[in-house]
C-alpha cells in the first residue's frame, strides 16, 4: 500500500470499529444517541475507505478488482455505500449499521491478511466486461447482505411486543416496512446478480472460449442466484411473509458468504483472478 492509501485505510478501519461500538452502546444500554454517532462514524468510514480506494486506484492505474485484498475493500465499500443509498429513501434503515459496520470491518481485516501488494492489472482483467461484472457482483452481494441484516433485525424485533421494545429496536422500521425493504433489496440483488452472471458468461466466453465451465465459483454463484430465486417465488407465489421470509433472507446470506469466501481460493479457474 502507498502511504496515503495506508493512512486512509486505517482511519476507515477505526471509524467502522468506533461506529460499531457506538451502535452496540445504543443497543445494549438503550442510548439512542449512540445510534446517531454510530451512523456518522460508519459513514465517516465510508468516506475514508473511498479515499483509500481512490489512492490505490491512482497508484495502480486500475480499480480494486484483483486479488483478495482489493476484492474485500471493494466489497466492504459497496456494502456500506448501498446502506447509505437506501437510507436516502428509507431513513429508518440507518440502525442496520449495527450489522453492516462489523461486517465491513471483518471484510477489511480478512483482506489485509492476504497482503496488500499493489500490482498492475493482469491481462485477463483487461476487458470492459470486468467493470460490468464486478460492479453488478458487488451490488448484488451488498444488497443480499443488507437484506440479510434486515432479516436478522426483523427476527429480533418480531420477538418482542412493541411496548417491550428497547429504544434502539424502536429505531428500526416497523415490521411491515422492514419486510418491504427487505424484499426490495432481494429483488434488486437478484436482478444485479442476473446481470453479473450474464456479463460473467460473456466475459468468460471471450477470455476462455467457454461461457460456463462449472467451476466452483461459477456454480456457487448460480446456487446463490437459485436460492434467492426460490425466496422470491415463495414470497410472490406462495405468499410467504413475515418471519419466514426474514429467516430465508438471513439464512441465504450463508450461501453468499460461501460464494465469496468459502471457495474462491480453491477454484482452479477464478483463483488467478481472486
Amino acid at each position, binding site marked *: 500500500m502507498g502511504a496515503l492509501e495506508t493512512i486512509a485505510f486505517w482511519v476507515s478501519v477505526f471509524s467502522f470499529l468506533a461506529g460499531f461500538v457506538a451502535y452496540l452502546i445504543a443497543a445494549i444500554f438503550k442510548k439512542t444517541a449512540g445510534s446517531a454517532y454510530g451512523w456518522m462514524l460508519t459513514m465517516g468510514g465510508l468516506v475514508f475507505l473511498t479515499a483509500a480506494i481512490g489512492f490505490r486506484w491512482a497508484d495502480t492505474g486500475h480499480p480494486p478488482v484483483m486479488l483478495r485484498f482489493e476484492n474485500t475493500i471493494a466489497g466492504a465499500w459497496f456494502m456500506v455505500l448501498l446502506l447509505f443509498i437506501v437510507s436516502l429513501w428509507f431513513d429508518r434503515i440507518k440502525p442496520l449499521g449495527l450489522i453492516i459496520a462489523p461486517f465491513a470491518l471483518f471484510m477489511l481485516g480478512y483482506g489485509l491478511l492476504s497482503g496488500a501488494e499493489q*500490482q*498492475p*492489472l*493482469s*491481462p*485477463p482483467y*483487461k*476487458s470492459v466486461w470486468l467493470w460490468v461484472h464486478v460492479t453488478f457482483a458487488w451490488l448484488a452481494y451488498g444488497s443480499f447482505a443488507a437484506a440479510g441484516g434486515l432479516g436478522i433485525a426483523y427476527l429480533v424485533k418480531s420477538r418482542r411486543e412493541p411496548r417491550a421494545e428497547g429504544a434502539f429496536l424502536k429505531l428500526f422500521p*416497523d415490521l*411491515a*416496512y422492514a*419486510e*418491504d*425493504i427487505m*424484499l*426490495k433489496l432481494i*429483488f434488486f440483488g*437478484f*436482478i444485479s446478480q*442476473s*446481470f453479473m*452472471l*450474464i456479463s460473467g*458468461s*460473456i*466475459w468468460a*466466453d*471471450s*477470455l*476462455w*472460449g*467457454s*461461457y460456463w465451465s*462449472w*467451476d*466452483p465459483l461459477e*456454480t*456457487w454463484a*448460480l*446456487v446463490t442466484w*437459485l*436460492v434467492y430465486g*426460490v425466496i422470491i417465488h415463495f414470497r*410472490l407465489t406462495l*405468499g410467504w411473509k413475515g418471519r419466514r421470509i426474514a429467516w430465508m433472507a438471513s439464512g441465504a446470506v450463508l450461501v453468499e458468504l460461501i460464494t465469496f469466501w468459502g*471457495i474462491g481460493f*480453491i*477454484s*482452479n*479457474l477464478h483463483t488467478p483472478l481472486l
Partner: protein
Amino acid sequence: MIITALLLPGLLLPTESLHSVEELAVLQKNNPLLYQLSSTFNPPAMAGSWTFIFLNIVLLTSTVLCSIERIRNRRFTDPQAREPKYSRHKRVLELAGTREDFAEKARLLLRRSRWRPTVAERTGRTIVAGRKGDFGFWGSIVFHLGFLVLLFGIIISARTRLNANILITEGQTVSLLNEGFTTVVKAPERVELPEFEIRLDKVISTYEASRFPTNYSSRLTFLYPRGERAATAGVNLAANYDDLTFLMENYGYAPKFIVHDDRGRELLNGFVNLKGREPNSMDEITAKDGLKIETRFFPDYYEPKPRQAGNRSLEAKNPVFLIKAVQGEKTIFNGPVALGASVRMQKYDLLFPEIRKWAYLKVTRDKGAPFIFFGLVVAVAGLVIRFAVHEKTVHVVVSDEPGKINVVIAGKSRYFPALFVDEIDRIANTLGPGGKKVSV
C-alpha cells in the same frame, strides 16, 4: 429447488476442480465410495446427466404451459377482478366542497401521477379508481420467453460445441485437418473444419517492472488455398476464421537444444516446449542413448554470489538453463548453459543456439452461444419489468354528508403494501391535508 439440491452435493464433495489428479487417485484408493459419489455428483457430470436433461425438459414444458395459461387467464378475466392480493390502507378526509368537483380533482391528480383513472357513479357517492403496473404482467411472460430461448440455446450448444486446444511454437505451421488438436475438451460427433493452416509468427508478451505480465498475444497467419490473412489472438481478444474462434490461453518458452556425440550423431535436435516460464521451473527432456536432461530455466539469469543462481526478471533478457544430464545412474553434466553457448557432457556436446516461445491456443465454435446470450438478456429484461412495474390500485371514494364531503382514500399494492402507505398518504395530502389514517 431440485436443481439447487442436485448441484449442492457436488460442490461439497472433492472434485478435480479442487484437487489434483494425484489427490483424487489417493481418494479413490482410500475411500472408493466417496470417490464414486464425487465422480457422480460433481457439477459438470450432473450437468451432462440424464437427470439434468430430464429436469430441463420438465422446466421447458412447464415454462411454456405456464406462460400460455397466464396469457389465457389474463385475456378472459375482468381487469377489475385482477386486484392485487395484499392489504389495504386507508386515509379518511372530511372536506368542504362538492362531490363532483372533488371527484374531478381526484381524477386529474391520478392522471397526472400516471394512474389510469376511471370514474364510477353510485348512489350518493363517486368512486375514482386508478390502476398502475398492469404492464408488469408481461415482465413474467418476457422472462419465460427469454428462458425458453436460453434453454433452446443450451440444447444447440450441447450438440454443436467445439472446445479444443492447439500447442504451437513460433515459426510452426499446423493444419487442424491433418495434425488435429493437441487436446479436445468437447466436440460434436462430426467435426467439420475448413481447409486452412495456422502459422504462429510471434508471441508478444509485455511486463511491468519486469515482474508483472501486462499483456500477451499471438500473431498468427491463416493460410488457406486462396491466400493468407494475418490475425492476432490475445487475452480477451479473439481471432476468427470462418466460424472458429481462436483465443490465447497461455504461453511459454521453447529453447532449441542440439545434442550430438563425438561422431556427429544427433541425439536431440529441436525446440522443447517448457512447461513453466517462471524462474527455476523444472523440465525433463529425454534423448537417445538413455540420456535424461533436467533443466531449470532462468529467463534473466545472474549470479548474486559466485556459483549461486539468481534471476532478475520474468523477461527473457538473459536466458540460462541449469542443466543436469544423467545417463543411466551417472551424472555426466551439471551446470549453467547460456543462450548461444555449448557445453561438453563427457562424450556429448549440448548446444543451446536459440530460444522461441510457444502458445497454447483455445479453439472454439458454439452455434448455441448467441441464443444463450440473447435468451439471458431477454430473461433479465423480463425480470426488470416484473419487479419494477407491479400492480397497484387506488380508490378515492367521495360521498356526500351534510355540509361536507367524506373522502376515503385506499389502495392495494401487490408486492410492497407497507411502502404503499406513503403513496396513499401523498395522494391524501395533495387532495386535502389532515384526515384520519386507518390501516387495515
